[in-house]
């Protein structure tokens, strides 16, 4: 082992362990999921990078949003994301979660995923190659090392903002069934949509 690494590891042993054990939640969104089977199996073998798919959200910490997100899927994404344990990392895969992609004026597809759940990284492209997932994963390592993959903290700190956005498009979600409806959509400047 590189000796220069040792102080860094001692500084935050949890992050050092975390970044090599990413458990991706099994969650199929849109067309990008077709890239995931070759990624996790023998052709590209994501386990080399410490990424293994996990069947339940409660034991997973990497959430790949693979493709367009319809409103119905967004409800399931929010539900899944709320169930995952901290720290959790979300990666938007493909053009559609970034800005709607080819569905930019669709009536049923959300355009900016980061308005509803915090996103730690994006992979652009339609479709991105499986290699792009590994670039994203190695990039995510760097972010975790530096403490920049803090989407779960942003979600906690700006919960009202995310809830208000979620409620605006999905008012019938079970999580809003007993809500007061007083959340306001005052976003911090870094999260605001460009106007």
């Amino acid at each position, binding site marked *: 082992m590189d000796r220069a690494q040792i102080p860094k590891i001692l500084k935050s042993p949890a992050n050092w362990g975390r970044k090599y054990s990413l458990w991706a939640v099994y969650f199929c969104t849109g067309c990008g999921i077709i890239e995931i089977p070759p990624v996790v199996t023998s052709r590209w073998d994501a386990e080399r990078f410490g990424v293994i798919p996990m069947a339940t959200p409660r034991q997973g910490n990497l959430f790949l949003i693979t493709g367009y997100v*319809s*409103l*119905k899927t967004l*409800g399931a994404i929010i539900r899944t994301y709320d169930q995952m344990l901290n720290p959790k990392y979300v990666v938007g895969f493909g053009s559609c979660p970034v800005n*709607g992609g080819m569905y*930019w*004026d*669709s*009536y*049923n597809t*959300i*355009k*900016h995923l980061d*308005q509803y759940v915090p996103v730690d990284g994006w992979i652009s492209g339609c479709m991105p190659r499986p290699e792009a997932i590994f670039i994203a994963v190695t990039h995510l390592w760097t972010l975790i090392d530096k403490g920049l993959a803090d989407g779960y903290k942003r979600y906690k700190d700006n919960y009202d903002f995310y809830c208000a956005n979620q409620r*605006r*498009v*999905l*008012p*019938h979600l079970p999580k809003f069934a007993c809500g007061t409806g007083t959340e306001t959509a005052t976003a911090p400047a870094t999260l605001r*949509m*460009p*106007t």
Partner: protein
Amino acid sequence: MRDRDGDRDRTGHVADADVNEEDLKQRIADRMPQCGVTVPKPGRLIATVPRDGLLSLLHLLKTDGFEHLSLISCVDWIDEGELELVYHLWSQEKKVHAMAKTRVDRASPRMLSVILLFRHAQTYERELHEMFGIDFDGNPRQVPLLLDHWQGIPPMRKEFDLRRHARETFGVEERTDD
């Protein structure tokens, strides 16, 4: 059943078919004089009827061997104030794609359900009810299929302002193509 798996042209249609679309056309025209039948190309049959005759036409086609309802689609003729329903039928034996077309009033579209003839039409009608706002009399389950919480005019109608909806609901930025 005849063996018709040989001699296909590029479109999959059997070139030397002994099924004659003109015969089919004549049979339908004999039994339903109010029905306008055309054969735009081999393997394709289009029958247009008034609204009340559609069920009889579908029954006629079904007994003629068109046993598979592939799809029901809808066209919005906004200038004529009508919605056109297209029932796509396929005959495995004849290898002919038949379309039964009918038009309903656009302001209050109602149609008789065809689930007595084709049970799986239930899902297609449910989707048309959701996307075009057509009421199907006799369909017991016209509840939302894909849109959970839709309010306002159905999204596939032409007067639905797609861009405005996307802007107001999802905050899509306006694009200027210059």
